């Protein structure tokens, strides 16, 4: 109790202590008991404080008015309870900075001592706000500080009188007793608020980290999950973990989970439980990163791990990103190796036909360049496909002779072809162009090549594209060998594209028609290409 709350009389001439009455205090017991019960069962603070002011108003002598003010963290007075004061009054006091120069309760709040004001009208500390109580017929007041266990001022218990006087001994004992209960109630509320704040903080942090907490009881094999963990695991609050683990953890991950448990509960170990596993989530799986600490009980050789407590975190997105990254790395490696294999084959094929080093170098470089230009085109399109017009234009550009624009004509609708088709066709067009330059239309001043394409669906469900290479103005020339490299490459290419190639040679020159299916969705999965 507030034994060291010393009496402070603000005005001389009045003896505040009148008489004491122990029987009066005894009558308080039922109300005191009831108020303590309210505190214990966690009744709302305003309700408890209102009840406490009611005790004083009922038991003090005459028509007193009681009010509890709370002192907040900023040193301001806040209405705790003032059920007999008008709202205007409470509002006027609420938020005032506690000061040693103001009123009665304010001084008690600052000093932590009992303050008695037997005549408000005459007290200079009330000068600025005296109309408030005087207007209600309240002419005297006294205030009992409400102190925490550590002596900190939590608030004040103020009593107003309708006659100019100080408190009786009984009233002082009464208020001291009630103020003690108020202190318990306020500290309880502070502690509740602090716990609530911490709970909310933890909750927000857990939500932000997509985590859920749980506790695994080793002896019983039971795991208990918080609401957040229940959502992560799609499980109820309490699960027979050891018996049911097969139903919710991915079978491939169960051995590593048990291994992590074994390591965590091993005597002399770190006690840390760390593992990643998948748990069932609807029709799929959710990746969790799981961390826990082992709790042990007993001493010496009897010491045993009893539980693991921890939290799990949803890392599905990270795992998916890792998987995508690995797929891209694998695909890149595959593509590089495939490209090297193609270049190797180009070298071997070129060497078979042009053993002369100088000729070999020219032919080999030209073919690799054709491939490289197609790569550039595809890279610009993020390997999602290439517009056929751009591809044809790029592939044929080395064969456009200087100052003769009419030698090569390209025309066709906007079509996007797959990366594979682009690489294949770039080499095909290169071979056709090389052949035309050496033996065909492009060798002659008035020769001409037209490269055109169009859809030719017919009855086929999938769109089919027809690509025509037509030379004109050759007049007489020797037809190329059917077993030649160009012929074989064009046929193999048509087969790769799932289509056909026709080649015929007339007096005008070479005609080559390729037909192949061409998916029109435009979006080709990078990972599915070869």
């Amino acid at each position, binding site marked *: 109790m507030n034994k060291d709350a010393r009496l402070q009389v603000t005005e001389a001439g009045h003896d505040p202590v009148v008489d004491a009455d122990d029987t009066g205090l005894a009558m308080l017991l039922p109300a005191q008991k009831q108020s303590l019960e309210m505190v214990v069962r966690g009744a709302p603070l305003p309700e408890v404080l209102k009840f406490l002011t009611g005790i004083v108003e009922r038991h003090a002598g005459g028509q007193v008015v009681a009010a509890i003010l709370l002192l907040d963290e900023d040193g301001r007075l806040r209405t705790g309870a003032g059920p007999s004061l008008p709202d205007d009054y409470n509002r006027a006091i609420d938020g005032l900075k506690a000061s040693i120069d103001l009123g009665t309760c304010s001084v008690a709040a600052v000093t932590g001592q009992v303050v008695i004001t037997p005549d408000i009208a005459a007290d200079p500390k009330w000068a600025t706000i005296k109309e408030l109580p005087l207007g209600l017929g309240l002419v005297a007041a006294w205030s009992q500080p409400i102190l925490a266990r550590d002596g900190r001022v939590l608030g004040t218990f103020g009593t107003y009188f309708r006659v100019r006087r100080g408190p009786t001994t009984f009233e002082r004992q009464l208020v001291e007793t009630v103020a003690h209960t108020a202190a318990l109630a306020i500290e309880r509320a502070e502690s509740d608020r602090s716990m609530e704040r911490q709970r909310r903080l933890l909750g927000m942090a857990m939500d932000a980290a997509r985590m859920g907490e749980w506790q695994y009881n080793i002896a019983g094999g039971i795991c208990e999950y918080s609401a957040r963990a229940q959502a992560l695991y799609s499980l109820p609050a309490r699960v027979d973990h050891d018996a049911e683990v097969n139903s919710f953890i991915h079978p491939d991950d169960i051995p590593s989970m048990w291994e992590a448990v074994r390591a965590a509960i091993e005597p002399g170990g770190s006690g840390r439980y760390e593992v990643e596993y998948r748990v069932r989530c609807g029709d799929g799986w959710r990746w969790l990163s799981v961390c826990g600490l082992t709790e042990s009980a007993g001493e010496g050789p009897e010491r045993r791990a009893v539980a693991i407590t921890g939290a799990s975190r949803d890392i599905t997105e990270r795992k998916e990103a890792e998987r995508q990254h690995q797929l891209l790395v694998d695909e890149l490696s595959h593509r590089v190796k495939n490209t090297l*294999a193609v270049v190797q084959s*180009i070298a071997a094929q070129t060497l078979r036909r042009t053993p002369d080093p100088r000729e070999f170098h020219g032919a080999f470089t030209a073919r690799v360049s054709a491939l490289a230009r197609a790569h550039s085109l595809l890279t610009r399109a993020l390997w999602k496909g290439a517009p056929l017009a751009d591809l044809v234009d790029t592939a044929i550009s080395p064969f456009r002779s200087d100052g003769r624009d009419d030698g090569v004509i390209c025309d066709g609708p906007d079509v996007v072809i797959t990366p594979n088709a682009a690489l294949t066709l770039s*080499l095909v067009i290169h071979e056709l162009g090389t052949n035309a330059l050496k033996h065909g239309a492009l060798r002659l001043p008035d020769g001409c090549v037209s490269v055109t394409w169009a859809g030719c669906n017919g009855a086929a469900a999938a769109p089919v594209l027809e690509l025509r290479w037509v030379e004109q103005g050759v007049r007489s020339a020797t037809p190329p060998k059917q077993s030649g490299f160009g012929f074989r490459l064009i046929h*193999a290419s048509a*087969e*790769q594209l799932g289509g056909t190639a026709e080649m015929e040679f007339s007096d005008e020159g070479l005609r080559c028609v390729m037909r192949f299916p061409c998916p029109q969705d435009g979006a080709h999965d990078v990972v599915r290409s*070869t």
Partner: protein
Amino acid sequence: MHELRGTRLLIVEDEPMLLLDLQDITSEFGCEIVGTAAHLSRALDLARSADFDVAILDVNLNGDRIRPVADAIADRGRPIVFLTGYAGDFEGRPNHGIIIEKPCDPDDIARALQHAIGSMT
């Protein structure tokens, strides 16, 4: 070492330039190419019906994994040489067959074919 002359080959490869090169290389070994395929459906037909001694299979056929073709060939007890652009092992590899990684030279191919044939005799 087994003589490759007269060995009948099935070649499944979807990259035209590689296919031509494989045809030329194996022809120089004296092999007879009884069929080539660039697509899964044709590869499956040939795997089930063509008369060959050993198959060279590109692991990734236009995005279609080669597993069903390999299984069909394994069912007939014929050896396989796998060609792969992937490092090391790959998904769906049967427990027989020899893997060579692209790019590879003619000697690699000859050795792989000889081992594959040897493994089945």
